[in-house]
């Protein structure tokens, strides 16, 4: 170490160049590194989406998903758990992998497994979509397509076939199918009456189209010099020609398609509707995937928009809405601002304390350099610039100052002793190298547990710990090198040392202010000495009282409450509306109209941005994979409400009012507020609510009854809002129970009935897929033969669907009885077991208390649980509990590690104990600060606590090491303690104040990291008190017991006097 210092003095250019390199690389890294809201949460997830039109949720679960999940569990390695949702028409299986899995191998295995099972699944099912994404895949921007001239189907077509392929070129974007609109396809509307009149069946029409509209290459023929391609008019070039295809000759008259059906551009019955401020639109959601930065994705999309607009019809309006980039910019900017304010305040404080602009200059140069070095290092290991890393850097500022200040002060002290500049620097360095290393190690050690943090919290806080660690290491290195080089050049000519003696009279107000400060500081130092004297004199009483106060403070801890993360004010509200299960989409739209009217009554127009309704199940299962709002059918709708920033603070009131009014105004409909902004969506990890009570087990009916009873109890837990069961099991169902004997008597089978029903109710596409290529735009549109839904609108129209085979025909009603009943709207599995989710959100109460109350209910009702079933709490509660455990263990481990480090350093068991004994005070301070500011405990607060441990220890080490030194010089314990406290008053206070002032802007903000700042401030305030009073008192108690003579004679001061 000292060799480096020598180099810094003898070869000054070396480290100036190093500083310049840091600037170059640091600035380059800061510019190039992607900026994002959060670090990449690389929990690998592979989603598999199975689609089968018309298949109800129950069958999807039993016939497809269950089988596939079991195959997955045997064929794919490193699975953490499997979740699945079976909905009508599609099933989504999400496979969560262990950390560090080779995602490519996992993808390959998952895909292979889906090929294996394909033959065992219902006939005609297509291989699934396999998508790879992670927990931070959230919507970052949405495009709303609307038009006064184009139909909804054309809008969807533009989105699906023209905009989507172009946007796919934006790196890191994932674009599911558009929401809303109608799917453009060739619709052959069958007229049942006419079919019956001709004695034809729907099958005949399907066959006719299938045989007359073909894609078969016929070959080539050589004539003369050329080889001609022989082409066949296999497919009509105009859509109208489909109507002219002959079906069959009946009694000499040819029946054409047009006689019994009508082929036209149309849409299947709409299942997903989107409205922006009440008018129909198509919504394209763009998500970011993988490690791409949110801002890059948004900017990439925005850059493409002008080009896209040129290729689209002029009447199509393309608007970007819910742009999260402003949120990211705001969050990042505010953290950067906080950091700058912190740096400025700290610099000012240093100037006031040291009273030397030269010293201050050296310190303020070294801070940005350390930060830039940290940014470069973060960039090199692939971290983005985000709220967490920036928060870490802001946190580091306070500590960084300390390192440089200690160095400079020490040099100044030696200069004051009249030494030459170079020897002053060398002596100072020699004295300081060990304590500086020890305190660096202390702070680094406390961050070690954070690297073991699992789950989301780990992904979020590891980069923060890295940022702090890199900055501290950089600062440590800079203090040994560049600071010394600069000190040699700047301080050499400092003829008079500034503080203390021989002050010339001056008129400079700043200098006068500084001198005034010095005077007051000295006065308070004297007051401190008196107080310390009293404390040491009455040491037993004092220590006991102090400990009592500390322990007493912990009594407040239960009142703090626990959250995973603090809730931040946001400008978006997402209201999930669930109409009575099975409500048709038109009915849900009507309810949404009413809800919107009500919302506009509650929220003043000035506070309200656009309202976007997204009604019903999206057209593609891929959308359901990314969607985290728990939509299961046409009765579900998401209403996205944007609050203008000026009214942001009112958002919570609006939510409460809506929670009161809406359920009463719309009986039978349930409402829930979902995580809307990017932060809470990431923290909820794909769940629609923070609280998720899962009833796991195969006994569906009994579990449902139990869950219903549980729900009622949970709804009464104070602070619970929006409690609901996700898996509605009352989807209205009409069972067609075919009497097989009766059917057989007229020559029909169950299969004939099924086929006839399918053709009438869900179209022919699944059974006999055919396409028509539009020569104008080259898009292949599916041809779907179907009875229009509006012709089948009663029970008897269902009974009157003819079931026919080659030579027999009978009405369905003649063969079957209709039975009314219910079926599940959605079937969910967790770890290949059926589950029921009770979702709930918290309202004005912390997650920890609410979860504890719910856990109590679970324990009480455990005896009612059906045999073989179990009930667990997952969701944020689980993540929070595990994060807390890890962090608390981390804190304990940090204390142990620090203790051991100091034991090694002091070569004593007792003195480190003195130091560690001050740490509970820091915790008590945190409790007080959080209690007074009404901040709940949260992961950031606990991180702050860990941070505090490091700084508090470093301060106590200063005091104890000086006391030991004095003890070694032969003074008694009381004097040593007294001297240590008094001498170290200034540096201890400076370190603590630098840190506190550095944290002030963060603590006062309402951002995610505010509790961190508050915890650090509270902890440091109290731990400084402990360092200044409690530690000397304990020191005396400890050392009073042993006479001086008994002390280790071989003791050499491990820590040299570091007079600052």
């Amino acid at each position, binding site marked *: 170490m000292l060799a480096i210092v020598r180099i810094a003095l003898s070869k000054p250019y070396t480290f100036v160049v190093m500083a310049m390199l840091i600037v170059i690389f640091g600035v380059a890294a800061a510019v190039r590194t992607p900026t994002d809201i959060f670090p990449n949460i690389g929990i690998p997830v592979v989603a598999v989406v199975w689609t089968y039109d018309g298949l109800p949720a129950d069958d999807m679960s039993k016939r497809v998903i269950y089988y596939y999940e079991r195959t997955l569990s045997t064929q794919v390695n490193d699975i953490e758990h499997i979740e699945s949702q079976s909905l009508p028409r599609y099933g989504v299986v999400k496979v969560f992998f262990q950390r560090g899995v080779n995602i490519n191998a996992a993808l390959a295995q998952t895909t292979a497994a889906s090929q294996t099972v394909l033959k065992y699944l219902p006939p005609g099912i297509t291989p699934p979509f396999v998508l790879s994404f992670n927990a931070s895949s959230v919507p970052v921007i949405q495009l709303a397509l609307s038009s006064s001239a184009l139909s909804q189907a054309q809008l969807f077509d533009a989105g699906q076939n023209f905009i989507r392929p172009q946007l796919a070129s934006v790196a890191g974007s994932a674009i599911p199918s558009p929401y809303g609109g109608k799917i453009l396809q060739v619709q052959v509307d069958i007229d049942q009456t006419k079919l019956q009149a001709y004695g034809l069946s729907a099958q005949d029409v399907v066959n006719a189209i299938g045989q007359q509209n073909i894609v078969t290459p016929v070959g080539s023929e050589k004539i003369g010099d050329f080889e001609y391609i022989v082409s066949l008019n296999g497919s009509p070039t105009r859509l109208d020609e489909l109507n002219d295809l002959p079906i069959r000759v009946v009694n000499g008259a040819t029946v054409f398609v047009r006689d019994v059906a009508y082929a036209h551009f149309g849409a299947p019955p709409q299942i997903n509707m989107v409205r922006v401020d009440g008018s129909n639109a198509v919504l394209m959601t763009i998500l970011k995937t993988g490690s791409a930065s949110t801002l890059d994705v948004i900017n990439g999309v925005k850059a493409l928009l002008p080009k896209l607009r040129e290729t689209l019809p002029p009447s199509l309006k393309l608007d970007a809405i819910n742009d999260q980039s402003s949120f990211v910019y705001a969050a990042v900017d505010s953290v950067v601002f906080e950091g700058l304010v912190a740096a400025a305040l700290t610099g000012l404080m240093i100037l006031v304390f040291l009273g030397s602009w030269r010293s201050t200059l050296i310190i303020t140069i070294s801070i940005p350099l350390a930060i830039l070095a940290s940014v470069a290092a973060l960039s090199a290991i692939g971290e983005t610039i985000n709220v967490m890393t920036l928060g870490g850097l802001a946190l580091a500022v306070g500590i960084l100052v300390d390192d440089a200040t200690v160095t400079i002060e020490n040099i100044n002290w030696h200069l004051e002793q009249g030494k030459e500049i170079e020897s002053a620097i060398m002596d100072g360095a020699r004295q300081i190298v060990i304590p500086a290393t020890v305190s660096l190690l202390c702070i680094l050690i406390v961050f070690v547990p954070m690297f073991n943090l699992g789950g989301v919290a780990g992904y979020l806080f590891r980069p923060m710990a890295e940022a702090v660690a890199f900055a501290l290491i950089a600062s440590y290195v800079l203090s040994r090198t560049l600071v010394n080089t600069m000190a040699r050049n700047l301080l050499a000519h400092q003829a008079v040392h500034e503080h203390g003696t021989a002050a010339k009279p001056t008129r400079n107000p700043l200098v006068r202010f500084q001198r005034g400060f010095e005077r007051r500081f000295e006065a308070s130092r004297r007051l401190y000495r008196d107080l310390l004297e009293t404390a040491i004199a009455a040491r037993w009483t004092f220590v006991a009282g102090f400990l009592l106060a500390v322990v007493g403070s912990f009594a407040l801890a239960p009142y703090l409450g626990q959250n995973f993360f603090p809730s931040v004010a946001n400008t978006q509200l997402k209201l999930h509306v669930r109409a009575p299960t099975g409500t048709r989409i038109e009915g849900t739209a009507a309810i949404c109209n009413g809800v919107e009217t009500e919302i506009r009554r509650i929220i003043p127009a000035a506070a309200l941005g656009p309202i976007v309704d997204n009604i019903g199940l999206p057209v593609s299962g891929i959308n359901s994979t990314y969607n985290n709002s728990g939509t299961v059918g046409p009765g579900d709708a998401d209403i996205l409400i944007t609050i203008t920033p000026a009214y942001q603070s009112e958002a919570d009131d609006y939510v409460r009012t809506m929670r009161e009014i809406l359920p009463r105004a719309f009986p039978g409909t349930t409402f829930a507020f979902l995580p809307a902004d990017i932060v809470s969506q990431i923290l909820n990890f794909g769940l629609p609510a923070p609280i998720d009570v899962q009833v796991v087990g195969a006994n569906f009916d009994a579990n449902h009854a139990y869950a219903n009873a549980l729900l*009622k109890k949970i709804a009464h837990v*104070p602070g619970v809002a929006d409690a609901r069961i996700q898996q509605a099991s009352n989807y209205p169902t009409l069972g067609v129970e075919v009497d097989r004997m009766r059917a057989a008597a007229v020559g029909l089978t169950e299969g004939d009935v099924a086929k006839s029903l399918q053709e009438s109710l869900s179209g022919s596409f699944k059974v006999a897929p055919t396409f028509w290529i539009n020569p104008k735009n080259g898009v292949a549109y599916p041809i779907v033969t179907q009875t229009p839904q509006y012709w089948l609108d009663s029970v008897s129209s269902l009974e009157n669907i003819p079931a026919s085979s080659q030579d027999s025909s009978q009405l369905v009603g003649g063969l079957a009885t209709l039975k009314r009943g*219910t079926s599940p709207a959605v079937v969910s599995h967790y770890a290949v077991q059926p589950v029921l989710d009770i979702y709930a959100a918290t309202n004005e109460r912390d997650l920890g208390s609410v979860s504890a109350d719910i856990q109590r209910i679970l324990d009480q009702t455990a005896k009612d649980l059906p045999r073989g079933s179990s009930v667990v709490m997952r969701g944020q509660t689980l993540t929070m509990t595990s994060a807390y455990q890890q962090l608390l263990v981390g804190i304990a481990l940090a204390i142990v590690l620090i203790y051991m480090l100091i034991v090694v350093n002091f070569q004593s068991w007792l003195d480190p104990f003195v130091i560690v004994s001050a740490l509970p005070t820091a915790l008590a301070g945190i409790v007080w600060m959080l209690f007074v500011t009404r901040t709940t405990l949260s992961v950031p607060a606990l991180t702050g606590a860990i941070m505090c441990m490091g700084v508090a220890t470093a301060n106590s080490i200063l005091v104890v090491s000086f006391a030991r030194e004095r003890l070694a010089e032969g003074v008694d314990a009381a004097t040593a303690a007294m001297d240590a406290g008094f001498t170290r008053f200034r540096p201890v206070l400076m370190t603590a104040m630098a840190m506190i002032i550095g944290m002030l802007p963060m603590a006062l903000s309402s951002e995610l990291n505010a509790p961190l700042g508050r915890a650090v401030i509270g902890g440091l305030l109290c731990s400084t008190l402990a360092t200044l009073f409690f530690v000397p008192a304990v020191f005396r108690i400890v050392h009073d017991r042993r006479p001086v003579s008994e002390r280790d004679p071989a003791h050499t001061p491990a820590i040299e006097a570091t007079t600052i």
Partner: protein
Amino acid sequence: MKHDDPPRSVLDEDEGDPRDDAPPRSALGKVKAGRTIMLFGLAAVAIAVTGVVGRSHDEERLARWTDKQAVPTVAVVAPARGSKTSELVLPGDVEAFYSAAIHGQTSGYVREWRKDIGAEARQGDVLAVIDTPELDQSIAVAESEVAKAKANLALAKVTAQRWDSLRASAAVSQQTADEKTADARARAAEVAAAQASLDRLKAQKTFANIVAPFDGVVTSRNVDVGSLVKGDSNDGAALFSVADIHRMRIYVRAPEAYAAALTSGMKATLQLPEYPDRVFEATVETTSRAIDRKSRSLLVELYADNEDGALTPGAFARVHFQIPPDPKALRLPANALLFRDNAIEVATLDPDNRVVLKTVRIARDLGSEVEIDGGLSAGDRVVANPPESLGDGEEVRVAGAGTGTPSSPAGQRGARRERPGDARQLAASERGRVE
């Protein structure tokens, strides 16, 4: 202070001897310190107490709010007395009331036809005339045969008279006279035979005019001028078909499952592809009273008046049978039903707005409504769209029924809006767009 022994504290070097004025300052310090600590302690306790009290107060308020929120709000409906008519729709064939296929009975070439298809014909109207030259000749032959036979008869009579008178004079033998008399009788029979033969031919001649058997419409014509008609053969196509379409018979092959519901006198309406907007009335006349073994269906016959001739024979019709209502049944919207443990229940409210679950039996399912024939009384307040978790004895809030609901009128309007109507409207607009 106690520690005034060497080695001296560093403090002394910095600050001069602190013990010069130590006792008073220390004492003062002690007092000050004590007071400060006391003050701090009191402040801390005060802050803690306020904080804790404030929090528990908030918690109570929150608990009240949550409890209030946890009471579900429901809408109630009253069961309606008397059920609606329900419909059974079956495909049917429209046939004429009478329909005759007219064949030729006399051979010959068609000389002329007078009525084309679609023409109305009164009974006896000549539809076509067949040219029968052969027949005419046969008649001439027959006429001469008659004349010949008559001549023979006259001769035979005279001969017989003569022989009779001769016998009287016994000029001839009795035998011979009897022969002559018999001969005269035979001749008379021959005349009758020849006459009958002539009459037959003449009658045949009348079939050369093909006439309408009853008032009706010519529905087919398979002859043209000059075409040969073979008499006495049924294998050829009918020359004309005439149908009486003043009334129509509609035949419906009802699946066995519906056989019991279809009785004589039932009203029905017809819907024809060619008249999508028109409804024809019909009445069930009779049924075959036998299930066809092959198709397992019952043939049902309906009559429909057809004054304007819009119904045409052979047409396809959707026959909507109106199944008469059961006046005793109670009707409920289908969304009020709860399906639990294979039983169908409805949630009713007692006067205290507590839920009473009742098991009901569905008599008939009308789609959006069901007929209940047991377990429910007309005065019950039934919960519409009951939440799945609704349990016996649970307290609910009734929507719109006072207790100071903060709901605004507009919201309730939205909620109470007739949903099926809405849906239909939307469906209609959807249809418009699709088409």
